[in-house]
């Protein structure tokens, strides 16, 4: 019974026992277990493509009142497999004047960091690739390689649209990284740890309920980082064809495609780890730890559904609006939230068990006040000009 309830940890222990029973030395046992863990994480990451492409197409189709893919049995859910076969058989073209080595390097560089992030994502108590004490920083550091990969793709293709898209990368991704870091800092302040597993363990109340501001900012920034519509201006097809991907075909394009979905999955798991309580679900993870990966997965699917909902609902933003929205709205809001978190951490409490509840209540009250004030300011500014929407006025650039 214990074996089934705590399946994932017990499986590791069992494998370790069997291997040592065969007379494998300790370093060999650790090596084999590490390789198995890496393989599992890689497969989980790549499986995201097979699961989320049909999901995206079906959900978006539903929102746009059309059937979506419905030919590949059953209900078109195997469309990803058909896509994969199509990609494999396509011709791989490198433009004659492109920088061959860099053109080749970019698809690799974009896929590797997307998969590397899975090393620190917690799928349950002790069910984690590597519990780094700088886990959150690791995620941020690795995701900068993504920026680099897109720059290389844009430059190496020797194409004007690709180069323009590479210029946008620096503007968009770096602008949205800053509010993202501010939100992560607020979480780290409240939990007093940078390890991803520690953050989940320290989260008595899901942080989305404690600081909705940070949660929303993080979601928006994550969508901008993962380059999802309505903030997918790096590949905005109506402005720059497909951006940095325009010269890629066949499997190289498929690599970009895979990286996008793996990124989306990883970001959904990061959001559920930082803001939705990770593998915790009303004590269920203590009763049956075997379920914790499924809890994480369910939360990730929910977050991805939110992203698709945004995509199906909002039109694509204009580029200058997008950038000034980050700098003039999200960054100040994130800063205020961070300051509030720094104050809340200092609240003295007699009984340590009530600390998270007191902190949570004060934090939530402060967040609601900040939201109210922010929208009051937006409304004031909007009334002064004859704009239809308050947000539009604020994010419009001063020309």
């Amino acid at each position, binding site marked *: 019974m214990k074996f089934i309830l705590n399946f994932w940890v017990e499986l590791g222990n069992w494998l370790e026992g069997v291997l040592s029973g065969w007379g494998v030395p300790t370093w060999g046992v650790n090596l084999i277990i590490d390789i198995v863990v890496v393989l599992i994480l890689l497969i989980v990451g790549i499986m995201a493509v097979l699961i989320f492409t049909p999901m995206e197409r079906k959900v978006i189709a539903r929102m746009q009142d059309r059937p979506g893919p419905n030919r590949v049995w059953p209900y078109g859910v195997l469309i990803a497999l058909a896509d994969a076969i199509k990609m494999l058989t396509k011709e791989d073209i490198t433009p004659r004047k492109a920088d061959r080595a860099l053109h080749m390097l970019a698809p690799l560089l974009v896929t590797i960091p997307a998969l590397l992030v899975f090393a620190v994502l917690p799928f349950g108590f002790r069910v984690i690739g590597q519990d780094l004490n*700088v886990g959150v920083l690791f995620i941020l*550091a690795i995701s*900068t390689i993504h920026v*680099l990969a897109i*720059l*290389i793709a844009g*430059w190496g293709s020797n194409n004007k649209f690709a180069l323009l898209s590479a210029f946008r990368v620096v503007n968009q991704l770096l602008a949205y990284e800053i509010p993202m870091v501010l939100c992560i800092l607020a979480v780290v302040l409240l939990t007093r740890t940078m390890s991803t597993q520690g953050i989940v363990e320290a989260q008595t109340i899901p942080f989305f309920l404690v600081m909705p501001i940070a949660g929303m900012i993080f979601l928006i920034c994550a969508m901008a980082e993962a380059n999802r519509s309505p903030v997918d201006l790096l590949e905005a097809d109506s402005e720059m064809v497909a951006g940095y991907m325009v010269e890629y075909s066949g499997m190289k394009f498929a690599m970009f495609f895979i990286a996008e979905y793996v990124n989306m999955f990883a970001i959904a798991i990061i959001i559920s780890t930082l803001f939705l309580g990770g593998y915790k679900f009303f004590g269920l993870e203590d009763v049956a730890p075997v379920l914790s990966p499924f809890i994480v997965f369910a939360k990730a699917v929910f977050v991805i559904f939110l992203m698709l909902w945004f995509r199906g609902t909002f039109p694509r933003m204009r580029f200058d609006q997008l950038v000034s929205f980050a700098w003039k709205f999200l960054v100040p809001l994130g800063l205020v939230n961070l300051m509030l978190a720094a104050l809340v951490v200092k609240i003295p409490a007699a009984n340590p068990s009530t600390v998270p509840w007191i902190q949570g209540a004060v934090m939530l009250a402060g967040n609601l006040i900040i939201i109210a004030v922010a929208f009051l300011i937006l409304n004031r500014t909007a009334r002064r000009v004859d704009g239809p929407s308050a947000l539009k006025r604020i994010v419009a650039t001063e020309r």
Partner: protein
Amino acid sequence: MTVSQGVFIILGIVALAGAAGVVLNRNLFRAALFLILSFVGVAGLYILLEAELLAMIQLLVYVGAISILIIFAVMLSRQMMSSGFQARNSDWFLGVIVAAGMFAVLAIILLRVQWPTADSAVPKDLISQLGQALVSPSQFALPFEVASVLLLVALVGAVIIAREK
């Protein structure tokens, strides 16, 4: 030779090869990419020394910010984009002298100084200790604040310079 020595040699080769690539490559964009390779090698060395925080900051600041800025500058300057850019100019002899002098000074320092080694193992909660040290008035609160004010001044200055008149 232990495993960590082997890893050290590989990472050292990566860092040095990257550095050599920066100097020898005639294409500026590729040179910037080699610079990133070198930074990554150094970050690997930090991880080998169990300084994970430093390694992550190295990746975040040098690879994520400074290198991207360099690449952006390279991409924005039109003359630099052509691959036939000269790697040498008329001052190469002076450059060699300066570099050789620098190398000699560093080599002498490395060989002469008795480097202190820690007696005990590295403490576990190093990151929180570092954080405490940065804000405690008896340690590094003043330099930390001065540095942040300096960065703020640079930020304001950049905005003023960039602003259209």
